């Protein structure tokens, strides 16, 4: 175990996997000489050289398409898209390329690549650098989507993602990079598709990913002071969902709050809510409560931005509504 920051845990995963497997290479904007704008790839160019650590032109559409076919032909690319807000440029490669070939070509190819990106608000980065577009990528069949909330999961899930035979979109959060936590040494792999119980409780289940897990844990503290026992489930993987963990928690608490930092309409929280109806309608004592961004751009001024972002207070209020 070592205490490290979320960004350092990601860096450790990349370094260890590149040492272990020559087929792994990383590419993206500013990731080489500068070490990434969030320093996740710091030191990799020096250690592995320019063949496997490549600064790229600003060409997200092509870079993503290249990751798809490079993965098809024997390498394991890890592409960094600097902001999740730029992922719309990657969507043709994800939707019309990566999503289709394993099925359409009857199992002739696999595409073991990872698209790493970071999203989320709260840093004053404005409407084009603050979004959570989880739903956009989780919508796509054949693509796995993970979003770690802790440094340990950041390492364990990134190792799992690089080794996975399918495309994985790896969603980080700009406000988690400096969060510190214990990270197991060595070959620590967290299975994709398994949720984590971040806090046990008996009255209401709160389902979240990424930074919203941190907010949900704070909300659980607030609720505890009022005598409400909230369970926080960190889904960790957005697709494929750990449906058994969701069902088991609701069977215990009979109340559900779903949280996602993205938009509400057709959003990831809506999918969670519908999934709960499918899985556990008979277990529910109250309607599922959704906590999301409103359907609008992320504004700049701190007061405006904080007004739209989901946080502990909004999650606690939703839990109280569920229990009314």
């Amino acid at each position, binding site marked *: 175990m070592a205490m490290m920051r979320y960004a350092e845990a990601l860096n450790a995963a990349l370094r260890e996997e590149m040492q272990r497997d020559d087929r792994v290479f990383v590419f993206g904007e500013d990731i080489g000489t500068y070490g990434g704008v969030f320093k996740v790839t710091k030191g990799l160019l020096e250690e592995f050289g320019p063949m496997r650590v490549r600064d790229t032109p600003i060409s997200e559409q092509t870079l993503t*398409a290249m990751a*798809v076919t490079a993965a098809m032909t024997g390498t394991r*690319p890890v592409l960094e898209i600097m902001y999740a807000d730029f992922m719309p440029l990657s969507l043709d490669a994800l939707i019309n390329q990566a999503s289709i070939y394993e099925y359409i070509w009857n199992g002739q190819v696999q595409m073991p690549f990872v698209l790493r990106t970071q999203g989320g608000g709260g840093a004053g980065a404005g409407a084009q650098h603050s979004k959570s577009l989880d739903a956009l990528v989780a919508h796509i069949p054949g693509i796995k989507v993970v979003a770690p909330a802790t440094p340990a999961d950041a390492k364990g899930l990134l190792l799992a993602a690089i080794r996975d035979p399918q495309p994985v979109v790896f969603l980080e959060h700009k406000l988690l990079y400096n969060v510190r936590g214990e990270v197991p040494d060595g070959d620590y792999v967290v299975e994709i598709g398994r949720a984590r119980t971040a806090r046990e409780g008996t009255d209401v289940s709160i389902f979240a990913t990424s930074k919203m897990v941190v907010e949900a844990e704070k909300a659980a503290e607030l609720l505890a002071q009022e005598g409400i026992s909230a369970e926080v489930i960190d889904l960790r993987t957005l697709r494929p969902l750990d449906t058994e963990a969701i069902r088991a928690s609701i069977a215990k608490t009979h109340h559900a709050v779903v949280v996602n930092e993205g938009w509400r309409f057709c959003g990831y929280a809506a999918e969670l809510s519908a999934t709960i109806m499918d899985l556990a309608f008979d277990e529910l004592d109250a309607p599922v409560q959704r906590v999301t961004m409103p359907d609008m751009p992320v504004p700049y001024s701190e007061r405006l931005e904080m007004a739209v972002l989901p946080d502990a207070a909004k999650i606690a209020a939703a839990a109280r509504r569920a229990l009314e």
Partner: protein
Amino acid sequence: MSTTPTLEQHLEMYRRMIVTRRLEERIGELHKAGKTRGPIHRCDGQEAVGVGATAALREDDHVTSTHRGHAHYIGKGLDPHRVMAEIMGRSTGYCGGRAGHMLIADATQGMLGGNAIVGASIPAATGMALSFQVLKSSRIALCFFGDGAAQTGICHESMNIAALWKLPVVFMLEHNEYGLTVHHTAQSPVADLSTRAAGYGMPSEIVDGNNAVAVYEAVARAAERARRGEGPSLIEAKTYRVEGFSTSDMGGYQDPHVIAQWKERDPILVSHALLKDDAGEARLQHIKDDAIQEVDRAIEQALADPLPEFELFAPSAAYSEVK
């Protein structure tokens, strides 16, 4: 590999062009008889580009293709029966009927594969070339794309990256003058799209796209260069789409006199003229008869083959959550 094809290689290109042409003509008949599904994009008159370019590659080199890829498939060595079975949606097709005519792939022969998002074949081959460079492989990648695809942003991005990193890729521009119904003069201010290569510091050449030997020689030079680690090349093959955009094209926008002029320079006639002295008329006729019979047998068999059974995509966890 020599940059000039031997007589036997040229005869094989001649045969594959006839195979492709027969496929296209029979597909046209099947479409009129209501036996095909969806639009099919024929490449009649453009066979020299697909067949000539692929003939200059190694078997383990990789090719990415377009929605108009039948000559690319046959050129790369795919079996006409399994191509036709895929087009007819049969379980014996290269992709078990899941892909259809625009998306055919055969990983064992480096055909990965047809791509019907216009322009997407370009970064696809560039990504494969990146993989080959990282793996220190001697394989190269070649992408076919048209003058329509040359107007996409990913075409520019791919050429820039490939030239920057000296990736082993050949950009094979099949200039057939039309993007769907729109003439190239309404899509680009530049008639010779290969002039763009200068902007990437990349060599380029223009070749007669109706002459399989000319295409072969240009690709062989570009492939050698790529294999030497000197980076990509852009080859612009001038050809013409004589049969319209697809089987559902209503026509009316191509000048019949221009079509007639191009048909006089049909790539099969061009090769025939180049071969007749060295190979003799009798041998050429024999090759033609055999090729036609092969295609007709392939089509008969494909039509008799079983349709696939539906199944969800079980190997994929991300798909298998579907109930």
